[in-house]
């Protein structure tokens, strides 16, 4: 019902923007998308997330644009409260809301844009300010892009002030009902995230565009999952997950788009190398092929591969229980364990573009659907979430341009 209301709202906003377009010679776009992420478990109900999105944008006189949007995560499922060999799952549900807005200026050889986003859920609040700029060089053959964002995030946690300097005595957060209030037993930690991403695109030939760039991210603050406990040693100690407060993350990437006009198709490829101060090293490859079918249909197929090493303080459940922690930190996060991911999928989109000579209240209407299968390949059977070996991603999208 909530999703239907969102769709109706987006259509109404789109119709309003369409009227505005006729009155002010502006262009506008309204789009909605709903993604369902389903991660089944062989032991419990797994995790299911519904992610609706609605966005509108208006461009006036081809130079000034404003955009706004809303998205949410409606999460239900069960997750292991303790990372151990025989983890029992705890049921949970939560909803995250995110609103964002921004504006930008575009000229023939470049542009600049600023945006802000605010997200909130029962145990986490996030406020992000972002700025991006791009400039074309050498007759539009090169584009230099720069992006920067800063997060002012807040994380709810159990009050562990009595365990200061004694991480083995830290207790996990039980529930979020007292978060961001003055309820005793709860505290709020800050988390600052700075992300900088320079890139350079090069139009090499009439068929080929390549792009190279880097991503640098610095996180400073509480980064653990406050609910997660990790079983350490053989004395049944289960302290809260304990991660360093500081993390530096670096990535180098290359992307390419190549046109295949004989097939009315294109191929997009992305390669990425990653390293960080927690010793996670990763390589990711992503390829998408897209082809026109007739005059009003697009079909895409996609393959994605990711492989990574674990963090320096990661051990699997057996390792933590037999050897104890690897230093002063411990984790039960799958994304900090040595593992690989494979993703395969496809997308189909129908679009309608009324002929210019006809009277029409829109320029383009697009309807799309996507299915992707994500396969997890953990290195150890005693790694986090061994009961979840795959996830499915189903998405439906609707967009109108005026």
């Amino acid at each position, binding site marked *: 019902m909530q999703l239907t209301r969102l769709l109706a709202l987006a259509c109404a906003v789109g119709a309003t923007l369409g009227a505005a377009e006729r009155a002010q010679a502006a262009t506008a776009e309204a789009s909605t*998308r709903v993604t369902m992420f389903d991660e089944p478990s062989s032991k419990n109900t797994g995790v299911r997330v519904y992610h609706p999105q609605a966005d509108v944008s208006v461009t006036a006189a081809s130079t000034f644009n404003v955009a706004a949007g809303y998205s949410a995560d409606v999460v239900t499922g069960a997750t292991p409260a303790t990372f151990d060999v025989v983890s029992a799952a705890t049921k949970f549900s939560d909803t995250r809301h995110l609103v964002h807005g921004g504006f930008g200026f575009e000229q023939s050889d470049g542009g600049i844009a600023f945006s802000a986003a605010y997200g909130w859920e029962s145990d986490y609040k996030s406020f992000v300010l972002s700025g991006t700029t791009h400039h074309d060089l050498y007759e539009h053959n090169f*584009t230099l892009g720069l*992006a920067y964002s800063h997060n002012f995030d807040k994380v709810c946690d159990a009050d562990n002030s009595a365990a200061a300097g004694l991480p083995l005595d830290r207790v996990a957060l039980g529930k979020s009902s007292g978060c961001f209030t003055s309820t005793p037993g709860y505290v709020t930690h800050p988390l600052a995230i700075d992300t900088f991403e320079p890139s350079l*695109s*090069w*139009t090499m030939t009439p068929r080929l*565009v390549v792009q190279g760039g880097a*991503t640098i991210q610095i996180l400073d603050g509480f980064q653990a999952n406050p609910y997660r406990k990790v079983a350490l040693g053989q004395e049944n100690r289960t302290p809260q997950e304990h991660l360093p407060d500081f993390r530096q993350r670096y990535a180098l990437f290359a992307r390419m788009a190549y046109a295949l006009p004989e097939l009315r198709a*294109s191929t997009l490829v992305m390669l990425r190398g990653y390293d960080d101060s927690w010793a996670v090293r990763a390589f990711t490859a992503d390829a998408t092929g897209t082809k026109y079918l007739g005059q009003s249909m697009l079909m895409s197929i996609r393959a994605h591969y990711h492989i990574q090493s674990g963090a320096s303080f990661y051990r699997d459940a057996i390792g933590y229980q037999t050897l104890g922690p690897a230093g002063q930190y411990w984790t039960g996060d799958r994304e900090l364990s040595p593992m690989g991911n494979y993703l395969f999928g496809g997308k189909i989109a129908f679009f309608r573009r009324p002929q210019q000579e006809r009277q029409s209240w829109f320029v383009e209407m697009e309807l799309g659907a996507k299915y992707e299968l994500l396969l997890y390949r953990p290195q150890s059977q005693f790694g986090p979430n061994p009961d979840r070996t795959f996830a499915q991603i189903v998405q439906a*999208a609707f967009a109108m341009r005026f």
Partner: protein
Amino acid sequence: MHSPFSSRVPTLILLGALLFGGCSISKWTVKPHQRELLADKIMQLDAEPQEREAEEHVLANREGAIGGTGTSGGGCGCN
């Protein structure tokens, strides 16, 4: 004695001319009338920002790496 640098100087000058010379740049550039294929939406590196946001949201929570999504279009210069 023959200097090993003497034979490299012309090569360096030639490379410099190729890299920084205006004529060479203009030879290598793709002209506006050659950009028909590049202007198509299926050639845009960031054609679907809303879809990309949803994808990043899923993968960032399941992979320990970030980055590589790009910050701007593919240098089409179509505007």
